[in-house]
């Protein structure tokens, strides 16, 4: 049960090792890791802005919903902010539950909510200029599953 918001990069494997050592009794563990993808124009930087005072609260809320709905025995959210480059790690979630269905669903739920309800905004910088990433209607639609 931990939520971490940080500027620094991290190794998803090292984070998963730590997490797996804390979830005795679970039958299933799922992790999701998001990376910066390049864009056709050539990405110079991806700037991630966030609303610090609200971020932790929003992520704690998303995590608590997942824990109580899927009876998770463990959960983890790590999200970065600041200036990132292509292939840099952006964020990670991990879940632990008795069975695989719960672990998968809880991880997808956390990702769907994190995309549209956690106060992060991305700006892409290319040689053609800077542009704020526009929220996808598909991401808002994804919430209806839950």
């Amino acid at each position, binding site marked *: 049960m931990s939520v971490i918001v940080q500027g620094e990069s991290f190794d998803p494997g090292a984070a998963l090792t730590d997490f797996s050592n804390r979830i005795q009794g679970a039958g299933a563990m799922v992790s999701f890791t*998001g990376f910066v993808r390049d864009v056709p124009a050539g990405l110079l930087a991806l700037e991630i*802005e966030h*609303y610090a005072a*609200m971020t932790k609260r929003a992520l704690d809320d998303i995590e608590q919903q997942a824990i109580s709905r899927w009876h998770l025995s463990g959960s983890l959210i790590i999200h970065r902010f600041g200036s990132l480059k292509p292939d840099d790690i952006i*964020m990670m979630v991990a879940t632990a539950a008795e069975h695989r269905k719960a672990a998968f669903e809880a991880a997808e739920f956390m990702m769907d909510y994190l*995309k549209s309800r*956690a106060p*992060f905004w991305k*700006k892409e910088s290319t040689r053609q200029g800077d542009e704020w990433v526009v929220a996808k209607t598909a991401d*808002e639609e994804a919430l209806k599953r839950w």
Partner: protein
Amino acid sequence: MIDVLYFAWVREKVGLPKETVDTTATTVSELIAELVERDARYGAAFADQSALLVAVDQELTDFDAPINNAREVAFFPPMTGG
């Protein structure tokens, strides 16, 4: 007195990330109306309210929400985390 925060392109249009506003507005909508009267920068930022979200004291809410006892109101576009 209430803290008003702006993020992403709303911040860029308003020209600052945060300000403290002396207001008699009782709802988010009234606060927006006051700001828009103050300066054209706000007019640009709030031109299309359907493109904006608002949080009062760090909780997402809507434009009718009361702000009488609020400490902090934040305006921003739909989130793009993850």
